[in-house]
């Protein structure tokens, strides 16, 4: 008989336990192995993902570049009207520096000799639509308000174009702004200083520098302050370019990995170039200033290639904290930071002793804050955006870095703004009222280019743009189009044709009555056509308009360029049509060019961000009225200013300068209008209140004053006085419109179409009064 062996069961659990333990440990090891492998794989995938991110953004379009909007370039030629004040303000706006000896682009010198002022200028050169104008030296003399001499070296220069001023931009939604620059476009000192200050071992490390971190920690510990950063430039770039600014360990790890990846794929120069364009260097309202090139323009209004040692040091110093070291808000701190940077530059032998001393002593050199024109012409830029929107998608405008060249003349714009502000203030004081507002538009005559646009009494305000969007009844501004309709029928009407200014009643089929009255409440009986326009007689004009036909009159306004709504009612002949100053300028321009229509233009051309020509907006003209009719009308509009409702104009102008225009006042004086032109400039002004309530102003009391204030400041040429073929001047009788002669009573001197001259002549009664006083009286002693 065998006994059960007891030790066996005891051995089994121990073995099992042991085996289990071994098994467990092995399992654990296995799990651990899996975990490690999993982690490695995950890490690997993560790195691959980061690698993708790094490359995708670096290779692709790195930044959304805003579209840049430029004013017209100043073109200089001998004989052109220009004063030293205007020329110098233009140079100042372009960031030219006045020096004793001109040596580099962006510099100008000035010598005054009695009334003559001479300038030596070294221009910067610019990429225009039609090619590159190189940087060049030239000399200019201004004398008696004109360019008396323009030479380059010893050769006379026929024409010289300065670079255009940037006046605005269309910014990406992220509101970042930057000017792209290549490494070769930077002063070498800037790159060297940047490396010396921010990342000494940039050229050697692989993205992350443990040595730098250790060194920085040591230095910071010793000085008790954050004097040095341990981040390489690469890390800084990654932080700003790819990541947010949160500070966490995972983010730091991400940053480190991506930095290394960046270094793996791209060269040092590529990384550095991206860095200099990415670095944040300031905040202007909602617009963030990125990159050294834009920062240079923003703080110094100079291209980065022109910066001297002190300025380079200031900018590099601001990398550490653009707001903290802001030279406008914290000038002392900025100066100290600059001193530190200069010290580093000197220590690293980037600059010598003399240069070091000079730069330390130099002032900060920043321009006045807020003097940047980039946001200062909002009303005009609004117009530009609208014209662009017809052709370009908003998204492309905000990101493709297009360069848009416009027609704005900053000189004229500044003068227009001043005229509006000052005159409105003085009117408010004079009439003891408030809340007057205005809209004003100035264009060139012929090319219909918008030179200036004022949308608000306060021109810096980017709100409601009255020049573009305030649609008001134009009142008497309509009359010239009624009279032009008449003059287009030369067989029936000329300037001497007799019209009746008797009271007029217009009735409609359903019994409605309209009885317009003259503003003086007096009737003038029979008057020559020209007088009715010159003195703005409502009764005669309404009667004439009805005679011609509402459809005809409306058609004239449309042919002149108006595309809006014309109410088909008799009151339309007296201006119950609502138009903005922009639309009024469009139709009055046709009158200023003697009948040739050109759509108003704010843009001349568009280039891509790299300077390739993209699109031109050429001049288009179309003769829409007979030159003979248009000339006669223009003559009448000159008479408006000589003898009629606009005669206040010649209180401020010499009688030698022919000007033309029309006043306009609406019911209750809610709107005060003036549209007037010379041979070169057209300006339209509206003055009124936003709430459409009454003002104390007539057209000549308000808008005309603003117009005259501007036009007296603009060097301009007179209206053309040479009649076209088929028109000649003659004397007509005031009362009958028949032919007359000089010295006869009631003779008026007007242009007539020779093919349609009246055949009848009056019996001339010598104008006794004149003779007696001047001639006859003298003779008979």
């Amino acid at each position, binding site marked *: 008989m065998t006994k059960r062996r007891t030790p066996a069961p005891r051995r089994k659990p121990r073995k099992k336990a042991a085996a289990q333990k071994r098994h467990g440990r092995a399992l654990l090891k296995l799990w651990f192995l899996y975990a490690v492998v999993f982690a490695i794989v995950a890490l690997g995938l993560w790195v691959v993902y980061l690698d993708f991110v790094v490359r995708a953004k670096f290779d692709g379009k790195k930044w959304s570049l805003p579209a840049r909007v430029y004013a017209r370039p100043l073109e200089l030629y001998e004989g052109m009207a220009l004063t030293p004040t205007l020329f110098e303000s233009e140079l100042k706006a372009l960031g030219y520096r006045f020096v004793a000896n001109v040596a580099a682009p962006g510099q100008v010198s000035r010598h005054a000799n009695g009334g003559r002022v001479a300038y030596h200028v070294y221009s910067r050169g610019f990429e225009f639509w039609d090619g590159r104008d190189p940087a060049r030296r030239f000399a200019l003399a201004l004398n008696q308000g004109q360019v008396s001499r323009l030479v380059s070296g010893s050769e006379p220069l026929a024409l010289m174009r300065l670079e255009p001023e940037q006046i605005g931009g269309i910014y990406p939604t992220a509101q970042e702004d930057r000017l792209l620059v290549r490494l070769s476009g930077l002063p070498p000192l800037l790159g060297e200083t940047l490396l010396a200050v921010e990342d000494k071992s940039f050229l050697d490390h692989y993205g992350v520098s443990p040595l730098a971190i250790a060194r920085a920690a040591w230095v910071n510990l010793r000085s008790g302050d954050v004097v040095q950063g341990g981040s390489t430039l690469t890390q800084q770039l990654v932080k700003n370019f790819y990541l947010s600014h949160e500070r966490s360990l995972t983010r730091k790890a991400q940053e480190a990995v991506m930095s290394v990846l960046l270094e793996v794929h791209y060269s040092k120069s590529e990384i550095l170039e991206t860095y200099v364009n990415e670095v944040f260097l300031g905040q202007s309202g909602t617009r963030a200033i990125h990159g050294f090139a834009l920062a240079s323009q923003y703080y110094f209004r100079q291209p980065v290639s022109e910066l001297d040692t002190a300025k380079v040091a200031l900018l590099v110093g601001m990398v550490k904290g653009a707001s903290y070291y802001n030279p406008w808000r914290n000038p002392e701190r900025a100066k100290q930071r600059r001193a530190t940077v200069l010290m580093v530059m000197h220590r690293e032998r980037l600059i010598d002793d003399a240069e070091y001393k000079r730069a330390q002593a130099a002032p900060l050199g920043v321009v006045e804050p807020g003097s940047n024109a980039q946001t200062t012409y909002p009303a005009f830029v609004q117009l530009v955006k609208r014209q662009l929107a017809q052709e370009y998608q908003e998204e492309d405008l905000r990101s493709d870095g297009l360069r848009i060249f416009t027609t704005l003349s900053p000189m004229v714009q500044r003068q227009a703004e001043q005229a509006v502000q000052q005159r409105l203030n003085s009117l408010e004081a004079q009439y003891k009222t408030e809340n007057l507002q205005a809209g004003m538009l100035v264009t060139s005559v012929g090319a219909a280019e918008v030179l200036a646009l004022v949308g608000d009494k306060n021109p810096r305000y980017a709100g409601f743009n009255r020049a573009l969007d305030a649609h008001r009844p134009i009142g008497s501004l309509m009359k010239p189009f009624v009279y032009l309709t008449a003059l287009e029928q030369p067989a029936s009407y000329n300037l001497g044709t007799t019209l009746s200014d008797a009271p007029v009643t217009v009735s409609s089929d359903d019994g409605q009555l309209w009885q317009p009255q003259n503003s003086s409440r007096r009737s003038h009986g029979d008057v020559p056509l020209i007088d009715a326009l010159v003195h703005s007689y409502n009764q005669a004009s309404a009667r004439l308009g009805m005679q011609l036909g509402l459809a005809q009159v409306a058609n004239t306004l449309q042919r002149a360029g108006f595309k809006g709504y014309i109410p088909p009612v008799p009151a339309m002949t007296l201006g119950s049509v609502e138009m903005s100053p922009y639309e009024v300028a469009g139709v009055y321009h046709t009158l200023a060019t003697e009948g040739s229509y050109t759509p108003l233009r704010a843009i001349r051309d568009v280039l891509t961000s790299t300077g390739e020509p993209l699109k*031109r907006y050429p001049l288009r003209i179309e003769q829409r009225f007979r030159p003979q009719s248009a000339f006669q009308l223009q003559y009448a509009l000159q008479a408006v200013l000589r003898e009629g409702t606009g005669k206040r104009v010649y209180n401020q102008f010499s009688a030698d300068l*022919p000007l033309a225009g029309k006043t306009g006042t609406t019911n209750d004086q809610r709107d005060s209008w003036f549209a007037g032109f010379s*041979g070169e400039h057209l300006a339209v002004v509206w003055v009124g209140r936003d709430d459409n309530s009454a003002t104390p102003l007539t057209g000549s009391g308000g808008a005309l004053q603003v117009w005259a204030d501007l036009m007296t400041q603009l060097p301009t040429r007179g209206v053309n006085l040479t009649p076209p073929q088929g028109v000649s001047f003659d004397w007509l009788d005031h009362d009958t419109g028949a032919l007359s002669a000089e010295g006869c009573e009631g003779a008026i001197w007007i242009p007539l179409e020779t093919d349609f001259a009246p055949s009848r002549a009056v019996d001339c009664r010598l104008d006794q009064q004149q003779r007696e006083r001047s001639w006859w009286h003298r003779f008979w002693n």
Partner: protein
Amino acid sequence: MKSVLTKITTLLAIALLSGCASHMGPTSGAPVEDSNTSVRVPGQQTPAQPSRTDNKQNPNQDAEDNRGWRVIEPTPEPDAPAQGRTNSAVDALLQQGRTQYQGGDYNRAIASAERALRIDRRNPAVYLLLAENYQRLGNSEQAQQFAQQGLRYSRDDYTVDAALRGVLGEL
């Protein structure tokens, strides 16, 4: 008898002079085209116009000697518009535009012409350049418009006038 004769002669003279008066003097003629001459600059004294009474040194004496008669000099024609200065800039641009036109670079030629127009919009040669370029580009509508506009200013320039008419004829 003598005084009556004098008076009759006087009356005849008056009649004659009043007949002639409409053709002389600044009050009777349309002012000469001003566009190129009076570039009025703010703050400048306007150039003194020749005055009819300039040649009188002693009004009273003349009246005494000539019994009130006085000679009225015809006012001198104002100087021809000072074309000289603006022309060199316009000429340079026209030359540039011509070269571009001949090289087939029509759009650039148009850009040059537009620059010239901004300086002087009454120069017919500029309109000619524009018309020819638009013609080459196949835009007969604008070619015609610019040619016709140019004809308004080409009365004094036979060559350009003929060329403009030539362009119009070809369209």
